[in-house]
Every structure is written in C-alpha cells, then in structure tokens.
C-alpha cells in the first residue's frame, strides 16, 4: 500500500483547463471520495494518477516515488472505468485474471485461480465466470470491472463512478453493498462520483471539485454542516439548500437577519456572531436546509417563523417536499411522506435558526472561512 501525493497537478486539453492546481495527500489505506458535477475534472484526475493521461504540470508521487516519467503499466495502480471497459472477447474469468498475467507479474496459475475465485466470491459473481461481457447486466458488468481492479491488490485503487449507470433501485442497493465492501478494500482508494449520497455514505474524507479546482476537503458530515461556499452547500443535500439574501440589523441588542423583501426575519445563531462582529458584511446569503424548516401548527414561538402559500407539493422517496412561496422567495420544506397540501393554500413555516449557514453575498464564501 502506499501514500498518494498530488502536487499542483494541472491538465489542459487545448485551451480548456480540466484540472487546475490540485494538491492532495491521500494516506495509505484511506478511502477518499472526489465529488463534483460532470465536467469537474474528476475522471481526468484519475487518469493522470493512472498514467493514461499526461499532466501539463505538477507532480504525482506514490509511496514517495515520482510517477510522471513512468508508463501506466509500470505503476502499481488499478482503475475501474465508468464505462466498465471490460474486454469484450474475454469471458469474466479471463477479464479478472488478465491483470495477474501481465508481463513482470509472476503469479503461479493456481495463485491466479485462487485470487480470481476469492474476488468473484466477494462480489458474488462466481456464477458468471464463464459468461461474455455482452451477456451481463449493467450491475454485473460493474462488479466485474471492480473485481478486475481489486484482484491484484494494487497500491492505489481508482474507482470512476462505479454505480452511477445503474437504475435508481439497483444503485441504492449497490451503494449499501459498497459500504459493506469498504472494509475488504485495503488499498489507498479514490472513489469518484457526482451523487452526493454516495459521497456522504462512503467517504472517510471528501474532496469537492468544481471546474478542476478543489473547493473543500474534509469529512462528509463536516462539509454537509459547514460548507466552505454556496457551491458545496448546494451540491450536498436534496432538495437543495434554500438561499435567502438578507441584510444585517441590530434591534434591541439582538443581531438579526432580514430578507431583502422583509418576509423572513431570523436570529443570528451564537456561533456565527463572532464572524459578523467587525460589521464589514452588510449583505449575506442565509443557507437554510429544507430539513431545518417545518410546517408550523400554531403553537410555535414568534421569532424565526414566516408565512406564505403552497406553490407545489411532491412526494419523493422517503420524504415529501413542500415548496412554499414566501414573499419573493421559494422555500423547500422537507415533510413526512404522509402529508398532503393544496396548491395556493396559506401555510406558516418554522425555521431552526441554530443550523443556519451564512455566505458573503459577493464571494459566496462561508463567513466562517476568512
């Protein structure tokens, strides 16, 4: 196993900068997740580490050794491709054993068979060993691609959106299965995805990428609760975090946030008062997650309550999403799936102001990050 270090890694395709000055350390055996929308440079970063793409500048070290001048087949790196990239003319067994028979790797035949059987058992594809890739479902192809990457126990394991091409039901099941699998993976692993649920569920540490640049690095819960900027806040969580532009006001000693159209009034929580003390910021964006909003049924304290009308109500998965129009804003509120609402009926909402995040209206950066 080995520690992976990226130093100011940059990659340009023509005049498009796919990866922009990425510096990152991945500890030996760590399960790091890179999260970002499509086109954020996630796959390019993986391909730079694997060596199938050449960096424009910056260095890659595995186990302390520089990798830039070394061809992919000499790096002990394995990769499961988003398109699975199985060898169409080999059956599953040959696909799995292919890396073990590479030149320079002296594995005895029964050692190869043992490892193939073991990984097939782990991913329960042992009954598919004699099938050709075109006879497999997407779910099965995904497991074979994963098996081929894991079979030779590489120093670094790169997984490119392994389960994003499956239908919703299968993807949820595979995510849980992946969580169980995590314990069996000892290699330093980078898992790339655009689905925040996978990131939150699987990551020891999470890196958010946007247009090739790192936005934030940290634990999944930390990024969810304390996003570095609006982009990270919007990326994590469904329905998306509500953003309300507010001005700061001090009324009888209490620092308050008033939405620009005055429809929403919020108390500034204790932990955020320090950052606002210097009074430089006048316009801020208040980030309120839908689960921190509730439908008031009358007996709630006066402050942090607002009223509006039902714009649309939709049941999705385990929750219902009420979109209420409050003044000029549209706020999403998470409700239980049993609720039901009538369009345009009045509704009053309670806001748990203690879970608030505040962002500078110009730079969109979290006020706690200077």
């Amino acid at each position: 196993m080995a520690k992976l270090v990226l130093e100011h890694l940059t990659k340009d395709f023509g005049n498009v900068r796919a990866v922009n000055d990425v510096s990152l350390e991945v500890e030996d055996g760590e399960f790091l997740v890179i999260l970002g929308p499509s086109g954020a440079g996630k796959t390019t970063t993986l391909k730079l580490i694997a060596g199938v793409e050449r960096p424009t500048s910056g260095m890659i070290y595995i186990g302390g050794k520089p990798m830039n001048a070394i061809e992919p087949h000499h790096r002990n790196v394995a990769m499961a491709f988003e398109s699975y990239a199985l060898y169409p003319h080999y059956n599953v067994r040959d696909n799995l054993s292919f890396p073990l028979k590479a030149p320079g790797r002296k594995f005895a035949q029964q050692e190869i068979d043992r490892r193939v059987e073991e990984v097939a058992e782990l991913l329960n594809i042992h009954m598919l060993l004699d099938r050709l890739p075109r006879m497999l479902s997407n779910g099965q192809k995904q497991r074979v691609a994963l098996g081929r990457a894991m079979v030779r126990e590489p120093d670094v394991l790169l997984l490119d959106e392994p389960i994003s091409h499956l239908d919703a039901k299968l993807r949820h099941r595979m995510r849980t299965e992946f969580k169980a699998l995590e314990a069996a993976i000892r290699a330093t692993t980078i898992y790339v995805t655009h689905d925040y649920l996978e990131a939150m569920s699987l990551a020891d540490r999470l890196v958010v990428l946007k247009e090739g640049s790192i936005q934030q690095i940290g634990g999944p819960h930390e990024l969810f609760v304390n996003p570095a900027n609006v982009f990270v806040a919007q990326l994590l969580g469904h329905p998306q975090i509500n953003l309300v532009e507010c001005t700061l006001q001090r009324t009888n000693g209490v620092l308050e946030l008033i939405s620009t159209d005055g429809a929403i009034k919020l108390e500034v929580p204790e932990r955020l008062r320090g950052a606002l003390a210097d009074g430089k910021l006048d316009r801020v964006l208040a980030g309120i997650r839908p689960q921190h909003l509730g439908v008031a049924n009358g007996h709630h304290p006066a402050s942090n309550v607002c009223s509006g009308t039902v714009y649309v109500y939709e049941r999705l998965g385990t929750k219902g999403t009420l979109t209420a129009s409050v003044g000029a804003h549209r706020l999403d509120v998470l409700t239980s799936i049993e609720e039901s609402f009538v369009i345009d009926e009045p509704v009053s909402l309670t806001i748990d102001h203690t879970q608030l995040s505040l962002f500078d209206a110009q730079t969109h950066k979290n006020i706690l990050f200077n």
Partner: protein
Amino acid sequence: MTGNLASVHASSLQKQEVRARLPFLVRARPYLILLPALLILVGILIPFGMGVYYSLTAYALNRPGSLDNFVGLRNYDRMINSSGFMNSTTITLKYALSATSVELLLGLGIAMLLNRDTLLAKILQTTLIFPMMVAPVIGTLIWKLMMQPSVGILNPMLNAVGLPSLQWASVPETALFSVVLVDVWMFTPFAALILLAGLRSFPREPFEAARVDGASLWFTFRNLTLPMLTPYIIIVVLFRFMDSLKQFDIIFAMTEGGPGNTLMTYQLTAYRTSIQYLRLAQGLPYAVTLFVVIYITSQYLVKFWGKAQRRAAGYSS
C-alpha cells in the same frame, strides 16, 4: 483552502521537469507505426510526380533523348486544340453522368423494395452483390457474348418480344448505351446496398410519429426519408461518379474505345497514346487533367458529405 500541504518533496519543480517526460520511443510511437505506410505513400507519389513531369516534356519511347526536351504546357495546349479532345471530353462526361444517375435511381428503387423485409426480399438480398463481384473485364465479355449477333441471346430475346435486333457496341449509335448498360448492371448493387443501409439506419420513432400525424407516404418520403438519406446519396455519387469518370476496363474490353473514336474517353486516349503509340508526352496530359478534375470534385463531395451528414442528423451545419 487546500490544507497546509507539508511538502515532503520541497525540491523545486523545474528540476523535477526532466524526470517527468516519457522516454523518446514512447512519445514518437505514433510516427513510428505510420512509417511503413508513409514509405509506400512516397513510393507512389514519386512515379506520380514523374508522370506529371513527363507530360511537360516531349518524351516518346521511340525517340531517344526526347525526355530532356522540356516543353512546358505545350502538350496540354496541343491536347485542347486536338480534334479528338472535344469528343473525348463529352463522351467521358456523358458516360459518367448517365451511369451514375441511372445507378442512383435504380439503386434507390431496389433499396426501397428490399427494405420491406419480406422473406423474398431477404433471400434475393444475399445475391444482390454478385454482379459487382465479377471482374469488370469478365462481366463485359459476358455481355459482349450476349450481344453477339450469332451466338448471343439478347437479340433473340428482343425479337421474341417483337423488338428489332440491335448491333449494340459495334455501331456508334448504340455503343455508349451498351457500355453504360454493363456499368449499370455491375454497379447498381453498390448504390442499392449503401442506400439500403441508409434506410435501415433511420430511427423508427420519427416515422411512427409521421403516421400518427397523418402524413401521406409521399409527404413522409419528401420531407423525411429523402433529406435523411442525403448523406448516403452523396456517398453513392462520390464513389460512382469518380469511378465512372475513370472507367477503363468495361470500355476497353467491349470495343477498346471504338467503333472508331466513339468511346475514346480520357483514360482510353491516355492509354492508346502513351502505351500503344509510345508517345507518353501526348497521352499523359489526358490522365493528369482527369486526375485534377477528380481530385477537386472528390474534395468538394467529401466536404459536402460532411455537411449533409450533419444536416440529416438535425444540425443546421
């Protein structure tokens, strides 16, 4: 922002740059594996260059030293003013235009018929390519035999349906018709196969939508099938028009350019003058001119095909 990276590898980045480049052999790989093909390319361009050069001299095999007599464009000037030039130009164009247009229309008809996927269509389709597989020279000999007054079968067939016998390629009036007939017999399968592949590549849903929209067969054909088939039509035109402009085997095997000069196309003239009469300098200009015409037309058609492909796929290109 990116955490304080304790840079264990603090050495300056420039020094690392040297160790960061791949070995020369790896970087030069694309050019190395293209080398043999480039050698053959050169091996063909050299004689081509010499051919053009010869056409600028007074070179004739039976007159020693005539190669060093550089005359510039005199041969081309003489060619254009020569008596046979006008006839040769018209016959070359007539042959190419008539062959290509008949093959395109007949091919489209056959493709539409075969696209109906009936059992009969599937069986017949396997034999569609046969005429094109026969060597052009041999195919022409068979037709020549069928057109033979004594042993041939065509005239008896014509008489059987009350039509008078024809003298086919032995008289100027029907010579062109005879050779174009053989060309059509041989290459219509090409047009049919390409257009059939085109029809079969269409997505099914737009045509179902047209049915739901209540469009008539003709309305659908004109507004949907034809525009979407254009790139395939252009491929047929590209291949057939270019090939029939330089057709040699059929005409040579049928009449060697006769009767008289009726079928003396550019290729035949270039062949007879350069090879039979050994006057390279007079024959080559025909071949070089034909090359220039074909090169320019094929460039234009390939560009046009790219555009048509985008338009048929729905871009405004």
